[in-house]
């Protein structure tokens, strides 16, 4: 069967299983609610991008420092960005603190710093990031 397109502006459910009260949602909410960019970056050794979406490049700016550049700019710099570093071994303890740099958010880039719980800059094998907000 060939793939096709279903176009609709409103999604409605009778919600008969739960409340029995019909509910509707504007499909633009669905689009606006999905992540606009995400990625997994290996900061150890030679930096590499393991998986991504809406990313054109990642800068290795130094220990624990990265700048992600988007392919489709965000509309403004008030978007939400969340990231975290994964511990590198099952027996590793402590925490990894990810911060956006003071001037780190622009519509085309997101600059950040990863550190240990003690504040020391740290390169992780798995840096995960996701960005939500409006696209340009």
């Amino acid at each position: 069967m060939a793939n096709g397109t279903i176009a609709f502006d409103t999604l409605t459910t009778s919600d008969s299983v739960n409340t029995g009260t019909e509910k509707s949602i504007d499909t633009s909410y669905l689009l606006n609610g999905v992540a606009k960019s995400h990625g997994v970056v290996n900061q150890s050794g030679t930096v590499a991008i393991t998986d991504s979406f809406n990313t054109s490049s990642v800068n290795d700016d130094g220990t624990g420092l990265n700048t992600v550049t988007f392919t489709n700019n965000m509309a403004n710099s008030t978007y939400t960005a969340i990231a975290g570093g994964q511990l590198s071994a099952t027996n590793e303890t402590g925490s990894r603190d990810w911060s956006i740099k003071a001037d780190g958010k622009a519509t085309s880039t997101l600059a950040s710093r990863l550190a240990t719980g003690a504040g020391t800059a740290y390169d992780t094998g798995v840096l995960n990031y996701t960005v939500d907000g409006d696209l340009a």
Partner: protein
Amino acid sequence: MTKIKTPKFQGTHLWDRLCWAKENLEGKQSDYRIVWEDPDAPEECSKITVPDPNWMACALQGGILPPVEVYWALAEDEAKPDFKKHTRGYLLHNTKPVEAMTEEQAIEYLIMKDIPQRVWREYQKANKPRLVICKKNQLPSTREWRNAWKIDENIIATDKAA
């Protein structure tokens, strides 16, 4: 293997094109890296730009990415003191997409898109090298003294002479 044909994307939202590419194109891990230094921050270590594999697949495929000048126009808008929000995002979506590039052309495009213009404009007039395209295996394989990495001026001088 037959190359999949890119739909006519001019006028299609760039983000939708990226969704199509993620679904239909295989990512291309480039061996190229761009090492550069910011003339406005000479005390900082060298930065290394890593091309994204999905972006590289779009560049090689053609018909997906907008011309780099579109990004410059948006950057100019954002640099204005009263900037709040992009009002010319349509440039990303409505401008005719660029044709397929070679990997080397894609790296040149990426330099002009993702690296500040002050780094690569008038590059030849700089009194020290501040941008090098190299292969991944030419970089140190460990992160030792990462914050002290600098472009080797002697190596570049030799290359220029050649």
